[in-house]
């Protein structure tokens, strides 16, 4: 009876500690080890306190009181970062980066809004003023929300690496262990080598699929009665651009995790291709009212006219996505710079 109560008492205590542990720790398998170690500690302390070589119910109670409350124990795991104006020093660079991304996104969205207003001919005197107001207001909301989130994350002891995938965290762990074994401090370069900047197989597969689709578009596989000549011409141009982009992606895959400078050059070429991608879509957007996509045989003009608005929305969405992928390429070029220093 006494044994069950002792064990139950300790289990209850451990359960309470687990509940109080910070989120980043609870997400890791490691928290089980921490709790096991704590449990072992309680048993050893209780054994010693009993003075008989065996833990008693009283000694367990005493040990649990001396160890501290579950809140106090869990709180120690939250004291992880170095404080810096309510946000820890470790979280600060990520905080600034997120604010930068938010500001960039707000500006980009407002610019796109201006382009759409211009293209749809709804221009008026106050659009620039409105855009500036929207940017200010958007950033103010974004800044407030992001700051509150980062203060809470800092209080809970989160580090930027807690937001990495399990695989990346495992690679980092290995890098730390290797450096410790070699008797040197872990360097940012160790993390970079443990995190590949490209997954060659997926890029080559993606590129190959793009290449096949590109050739199918260029060699016009569609029956002639479906699309208008203008649209077929558009598809051929798109096919050519897709072939170009796919070849570059396959090349990236072949270079693999080597030659970061070559990867940078490829990304510059990809940006050029993506800018070229936008031209046929702009052309299509402007010629929507003169020609439709489908032949009269395939789709009667009255139905095609009804669908014009939907086509317009699709093209605008594509025109929004392309600049975003260009931003991604620019980000990759900047990120690759770190690898150049490493190689």
């Amino acid at each position, binding site marked *: 009876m006494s044994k069950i109560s002792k064990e139950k008492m300790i289990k209850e205590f451990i359960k309470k500690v687990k509940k109080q542990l910070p989120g980043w720790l609870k997400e890791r398998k490691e928290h089980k080890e921490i709790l096991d170690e704590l449990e*072992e500690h309680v048993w050893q302390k209780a054994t010693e306190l009993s003075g008989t070589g065996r833990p008693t119910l009283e000694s367990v109670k005493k040990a649990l009181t*001396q160890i501290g409350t579950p809140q106090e124990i869990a709180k*120690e795991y939250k004291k992880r970062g170095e404080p810096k104006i309510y946000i820890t020093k470790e979280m600060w660079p990520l905080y600034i980066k997120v604010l930068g991304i938010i500001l960039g996104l707000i500006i980009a969205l407002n610019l796109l809004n201006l382009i759409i207003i211009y293209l749809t001919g709804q221009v008026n005197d106050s659009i620039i003023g409105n855009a500036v107001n929207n940017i200010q207001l958007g950033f103010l909301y974004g800044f407030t929300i992001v700051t509150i989130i980062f203060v809470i994350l800092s209080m809970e002891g989160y580090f930027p690496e807690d937001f990495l995938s399990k695989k990346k965290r495992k690679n980092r762990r290995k890098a730390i262990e290797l450096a410790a074994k070699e008797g*040197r*401090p872990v360097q940012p370069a160790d993390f970079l080598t443990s995190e590949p900047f490209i997954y060659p197989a997926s890029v080559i597969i993606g590129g190959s699929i793009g290449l096949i689709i590109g050739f199918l578009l260029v060699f016009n596989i569609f029956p002639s009665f479906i699309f208008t000549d203008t649209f077929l011409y558009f598809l051929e141009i798109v096919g050519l651009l897709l072939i170009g982009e796919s070849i570059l992606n396959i090349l990236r895959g072949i270079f693999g995790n080597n030659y970061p400078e070559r990867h940078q050059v490829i990304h510059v070429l990809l940006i050029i291709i993506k800018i070229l991608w936008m031209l046929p879509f702009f052309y299509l957007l402007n010629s929507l009212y003169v020609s439709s996509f489908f032949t009269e045989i395939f789709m009667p003009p009255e139905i095609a006219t009804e669908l014009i608005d939907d086509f317009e929305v699709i093209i605008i969405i594509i025109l929004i996505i392309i600049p975003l992928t260009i931003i991604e390429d620019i980000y990759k070029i900047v990120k690759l710079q770190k690898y150049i220093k490493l190689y």
Partner: protein
Amino acid sequence: MIKKIKGMDPNLKFYTSKIESEINRGISKLCILAIINQNGDKGIHGYQILKELQKETGDAFVIEEGTLYPILRKLEEEGMIRSQREEIGRKKKFYYMTTYGKKVFNYLEGFLSKLIEAIAPLFDIKVKLKIEKYIFCPMCANKIEVKDVIPKFCDVCGYNIENEIRKRGLKIE
């Protein structure tokens, strides 16, 4: 230490315990490393670390139980120590120093020794470093054990310690 005293002026207690915690924070880490280092390849588990610390310091320096494990976890994350679970019995977790940890600890040990020696007169205390057992790098204070053969350069800062070795009539590696 002061936290345990009852009936003290609360303001004085608050201020002194705050400074005490600040001083203890860095030293706790160092003391834990010292005990793990002393146990070498044998390794040591958490509870034993606290017991040895109490024994070695005559109960004068106490690390709270709740504080010990987060520190051990952090040291392991930083690559200073490594851990291994017992394969039999209660599967206790044993801690060992890594090569990197040993190197850092040697330096910190030297730094602290020299620092205490330097500030001792301010507190009217006498500190005598065991210079017959160790060479302290003149550049970074790294603690180098006196052995039959000693490397020519400090393994932390790379400073040439040839003169120090010759002065003591020791052999250079």
